[in-house]
């Protein structure tokens, strides 16, 4: 006799749909681009990497698929997942739906670190390490200053304000670097990189960035239930048995690590960390148990979609960061207007 299996509820079903969409998006994206390759050829090339197949494709096709499109598609998914997962984590932790990875000064810090590395002509690994150190430095300053300032009062608000100030400080250092940079060689590189783009990623960059991103994502997934409780406020979370200090430290460290690594390969990509968690919340509801994986996969899908637009919309590639902001800013306004009517969804 068949045993009754409890069916997952609606949000669970939607969650099962997302990996399928992501897989479909992954393969379809290989076909998109100026060099025409059919989906059969793409599949044959990928399968051919794993097992022996009679070679029915040209060497050029293999290079386009494996060396150009695969790193770029993987990078778009990784960066999108990283930014939106850390955005969702910050939003729960600060009980504030308006918060994003930019909040703690992480993006600004990571950008400063990367720009410095570009200024000193370091290679891509150097740029990644620079972004990571810059991001960590910014968040550490924000964290320590806000704990010190907020020791008798509202740590949360103080932390957000401190993050904004630290972000501004790092941004002005960034401007100083741009001012000092060689206007013919370094300045265009820094400026273009700051606009956010995946045009120049290679497999090596993606591989190096994927390690901290995957570790950070796994950590955030593991502690995601605590974020539900944290969104009711520090005291209630403590009364419910959460060691709030430990959760906050772990979430900040993990979210910062993935944000900095994402910034290092893609530059500044705005608003993904703000709008995708909201889209995910509209789709599966606010429970972090399902919200976190949903935000992660939707972030990957969203950035993959926007990056496909970026590389196909015009003959000349549009920087990804500009596109996400163009799409994100009106959405942000829509959220603001909608919130006034019926609260955060």
């Amino acid at each position, binding site marked *: 006799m068949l045993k009754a299996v*409890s069916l997952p509820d609606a949000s669970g079903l939607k969650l099962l749909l997302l990996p399928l969409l992501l897989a479909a998006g992954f393969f379809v994206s290989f076909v998109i681009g100026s060099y025409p390759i059919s989906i059969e050829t793409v599949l044959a090339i990928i399968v051919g990497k794993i097992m022996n197949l009679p070679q029915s494709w040209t060497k050029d096709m293999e290079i386009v698929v494996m060396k150009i499109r695969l790193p770029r598609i993987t990078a778009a998914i990784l960066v999108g997942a990283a930014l939106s997962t850390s955005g969702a984590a910050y*939003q*729960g932790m600060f*009980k*504030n*739906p308006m918060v994003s990875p930019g909040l703690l000064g992480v993006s600004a810090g990571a950008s400063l670190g990367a720009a410095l590395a570009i200024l000193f002509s370091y290679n891509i690994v150097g740029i990644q390490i620079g972004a990571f150190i810059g991001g960590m430095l910014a968040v550490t300053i924000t964290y320590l200053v806000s704990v010190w300032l907020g020791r*008798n009062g509202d740590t949360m608000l103080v932390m957000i304000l401190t993050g904004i100030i630290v972000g501004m400080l790092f941004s002005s250092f960034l401007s100083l670097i741009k001012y000092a940079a060689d206007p013919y060689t370094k300045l265009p590189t820094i400026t273009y990189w700051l606009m956010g783009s995946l045009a120049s990623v290679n497999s090596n960059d993606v591989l190096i960035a994927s390690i901290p991103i995957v570790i950070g994502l796994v950590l955030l997934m*593991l*502690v*995601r*239930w*605590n974020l*539900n*409780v944290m*969104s*009711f*406020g520090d*005291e*209630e979370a*403590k*009364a*419910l*048995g*959460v*060691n*709030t200090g*430990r959760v906050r430290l772990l979430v900040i460290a993990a979210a910062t690590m993935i944000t900095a690594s994402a910034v290092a390969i893609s530059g500044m990509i705005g608003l993904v960390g703000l709008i995708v968690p909201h889209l995910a*919340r509209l789709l599966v*509801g*606010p*429970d972090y*148990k399902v919200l976190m994986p949903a935000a992660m996969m939707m972030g990957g899908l969203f950035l993959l979609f926007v990056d496909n637009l970026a590389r196909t919309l015009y003959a000349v590639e549009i920087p990804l960061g500009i596109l996400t902001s163009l799409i994100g800013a009106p959405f942000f306004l829509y959220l603001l207007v909608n919130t006034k009517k019926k*609260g*955060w*969804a």
Partner: protein
Amino acid sequence: MKMRLEAKNVSCGYAAKTVISGISLALNQGESLCILGPNGIGKTTFFKTILGFLALQSGQILLDGEDIHRWSRRKLAAKVGYVPQAHNPPFPFKVLDVVTMGRTAHLSFFSSPSQKDKEIAEEALCTLGITHLKDRIYTQISGGERQLVLIARALAQQPAFLIMDEPTANLDFGNQIRVLNQINKLVQQANLGVIMTTHFPNHAFYCASKVAVLGRDKMFTVGTADEVITESYLKAVYGVDVQIVDVGKRDNSLKVCVPVAANCG
């Protein structure tokens, strides 16, 4: 076996400022304690200290003889539940999700609630007679319903003691009585020890096995409602004239306290 929560000569407050001092009281499971006192006297500060949000300035808080300020958050939360005054979280959680959060103290750091935890949460909703709210959005239900949901969340925590911060604040007359009836039921049937604050002496008469009154100038008294809530004592604490009268039948009478209009100033 009944557990016992004990405060021994407790002083508490913020940093350099001591808000209240010299508080000693004890409560067993299956008893309720109502704390009365004027605004700003330190009732909430006392609660925050019991729950470990604030460090003790002196004295001890013991649970079954163990000093709870050495306990981890998880261990304390498994014994002492907290029902705060209802407020809105920033996200529209479902009622069942909110109640399931009460299970956090029984989960390991890296895990999420299981089906079993969901069942315990549904049981808590059932105990309070609000199963129909299960799938409603917590931020969209009424204040009285929200208060009951927070009590259900604390029940899902399966503690021995409940600390309730003005459970009847901001509720209409009917909801006040409904919440008090639920508290009575939890104390008598579920064998919980309840400590609650209230601004209404009548509520203390209605459901407290013990009453503690905090007043200015370190005034502090604890005892049964009949012993502590007297006309002269309320005059001393709140500065108003009241009359305490018996209502109802002889074998089922209840004391109530009514203001004496002529002398209310």
